[in-house]
């Protein structure tokens, strides 16, 4: 089992691939640019629909993947394509020869400041879904003022389904995340009025619709169908949100103590850079292009390079884990085929 397997990205996809390959008797190499494993999921607090702690999911994966060769704080400097293998040069000076690369480079969160009209980074009381999760985790954010949370708003589709934001795709998980976060906030501030400004509610997954009904019936969260047009700041520092309530066909305006922007999932520029190094095609949505989007979503057009997780498009945690398992199996079969 001397075969080098390079997994690029130490998020849940990369970790799960590593775990499966370790179980199959391989010793994969995981390369992570950040100083810790777990990727975006590690920033999250609770995961829908069962509200299990993200910490547990990530912690479990990290523990089980600990036997792998893991390089933290490491980027890919360049990749050379050899005859039937790749030479990968790492930023720490190590070079690896491999025939197998698993791309688990994940996604990037849309920079909410780019939607200037929402005032992220300009108005005091505007935060993103990620900031809110951070607050759930640490309780540390001056934007959440425990004594004055009378009205909270969630803006869906920030940087998703928005050609002006250069991302016409649906980020898939924000609807359910918004509802999850709205419920969590309502649990902490039962007296607060919680609004969700949405265009469509895409409750596609298992138990998502239950979540939605709960949010409406049990938590009284108000859903307003209409994209927020602009946000401004009040003299007392609260934010005023304007939208059209498309269901009543009238403009709607509300003053909020906190506005949470559901930043969407966009392709990770690091994936694109890597893809260029090994001449992998990029799909029209900016994510890595699979052989096809039905049956071979985890296979790249190049032999020996596999995908898992959100590098090919927005995915939920269970979807990512499933893909990672499938990718590990593909790697295993690929190695067996080489022999």
């Amino acid at each position, binding site marked *: 089992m001397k075969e080098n397997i390079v997994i690029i990205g130490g998020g849940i996809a990369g970790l799960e691939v590593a775990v499966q390959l370790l179980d199959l008797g391989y010793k994969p190499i995981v390369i992570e640019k950040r100083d810790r494993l777990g990727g975006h999921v590690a920033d999250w607090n609770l995961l829908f629909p069962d509200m299990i702690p993200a910490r547990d999911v990530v912690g479990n994966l990290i523990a089980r993947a600990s036997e792998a060769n893991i390089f933290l704080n490491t980027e890919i400097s360049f990749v050379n394509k050899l005859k039937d293998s790749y030479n990968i040069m790492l930023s720490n000076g190590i070079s690896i020869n491999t025939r197998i690369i698993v791309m688990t480079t994940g996604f990037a969160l849309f920079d909410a*400041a780019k939607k*200037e009209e929402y*005032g992220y*980074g*300009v*108005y*005091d009381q505007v935060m993103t879904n990620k900031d809110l999760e951070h607050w759930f985790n640490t309780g540390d954010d001056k934007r959440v003022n425990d004594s004055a949370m009378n009205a909270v708003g969630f803006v869906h589709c920030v940087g998703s389904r928005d050609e002006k934001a250069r991302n016409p795709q649906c980020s898939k998980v924000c609807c359910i995340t918004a509802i999850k976060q709205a419920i969590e906030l309502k649990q902490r501030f039962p007296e607060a009025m919680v609004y969700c400004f949405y265009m469509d509610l895409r409750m596609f997954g298992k138990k998502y619709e239950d979540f939605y009904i709960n949010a409406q019936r049990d938590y009284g969260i108000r859903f307003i169908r209409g994209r927020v047009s*602009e946000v*401004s700041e009040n*003299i007392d520092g609260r934010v005023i949100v304007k939208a059209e309530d498309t269901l009543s066909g009238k403009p709607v305006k509300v003053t909020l103590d906190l506005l949470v922007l559901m930043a969407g999932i966009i392709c990770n520029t690091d994936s694109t850079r890597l893809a260029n190094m090994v001449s992998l095609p990029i799909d029209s949505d900016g994510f890595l292009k699979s052989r096809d989007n039905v049956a071979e979503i985890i296979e790249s057009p190049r032999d020996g390079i596999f995908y898992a997780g959100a590098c090919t498009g927005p995915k939920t945690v269970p979807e990512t884990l499933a893909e990672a398992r499938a990718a590990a199996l593909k790697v295993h079969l690929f190695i067996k085929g080489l022999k």
Partner: protein
Amino acid sequence: MIYQGKQKIWADYQKEIPDNHWFYVRSCIRQNFFPGAEKMFLEICREVLKKDFYETEYHTTCGGIAYHCDTIPQETVMTIVARQFSLMTEAGYENYVASCITSFGNYIEILETWREFPEVETRIREMLWKACRREFNKPKYVAHASDLIYKYRNEIASRAKFRLVNRFTGEPLRVVEHIGCHYSKMFPSKGVGGAEYPYVLCGMIESWGGNVIDYPERRHCCGYGFRQYHVKANRGYSVSNTYKKFESMAPYHPDFILTNCPGCPYFMDRWQYVIAETEGKTYGENGYGIPVLTYEELASLVLGYNPWDIGLQLHQVAVEPLLDKLGVEYDPSEKYKGLNEKELSRPELPGVLRCC
């Protein structure tokens, strides 16, 4: 409000503005509204800053109002604009500066249309040729006059006689800036600071010592809106918009409003009188209104020009309280004297809004 957040956005929206040699076109309506403004622009640029600004009496309207009122088709307005460009070409200029925001938006929109649809440009060239045997080059740079004052703001500050500081309290003056809708809302990259937080007027205010007020309805239209004001039945709608803005800015107690569009200062100025008459509400201190200035008027004041020479007597809302705060000296008896030093008839004073 996080100032650094705005700075980051401003940094993203900086446009290239050549320093000199501009072909200047006037606005149709400003001559009537605040005639001192355009005069002072050329005065400051030419006489104070010694820049080359060319102007020709042969230029016409840009057709913008008619276009936005749906009375002429786009081809017509494009041909009119093409003729303006031909005047610039004839005069040997490449930089085109418009005094009017509607015109500025109009020029940008047309140039962008031509860029996207070159066949339209070709057709317009043919039409211009057929109409008046003229040819043109497209301008290299198109700017709004406020862009230039913004560019020269630090130079003006260095020659300033007055700073935007309240002489009585020593505090910076609180200034509301109001940007004409067509400045950058259509093409954010064509305006200094973009569409959401335009910097063009903020830059002047900051440079000259004032404090910018950001209030909830900052982005809202002044209420002019051609189709709204020009149709009498819609005028209530026009004033309602202005009312909304004043209601929103009132808690901040601004000292004055700075604008860069022909319609905005006029309507924000005059509607204060109408609001006072119909609603009994005034927004300034002691029953006065909030003075609304154009950037040229403000630049002139800062540079120490006599307020009556720059046409401030044409404002409905009395500017005197502001002049007092700035420390600008003025002779009230000179206010309504003509160029020939003869007393013009004094306007009737309104019932509710306090004026001087």
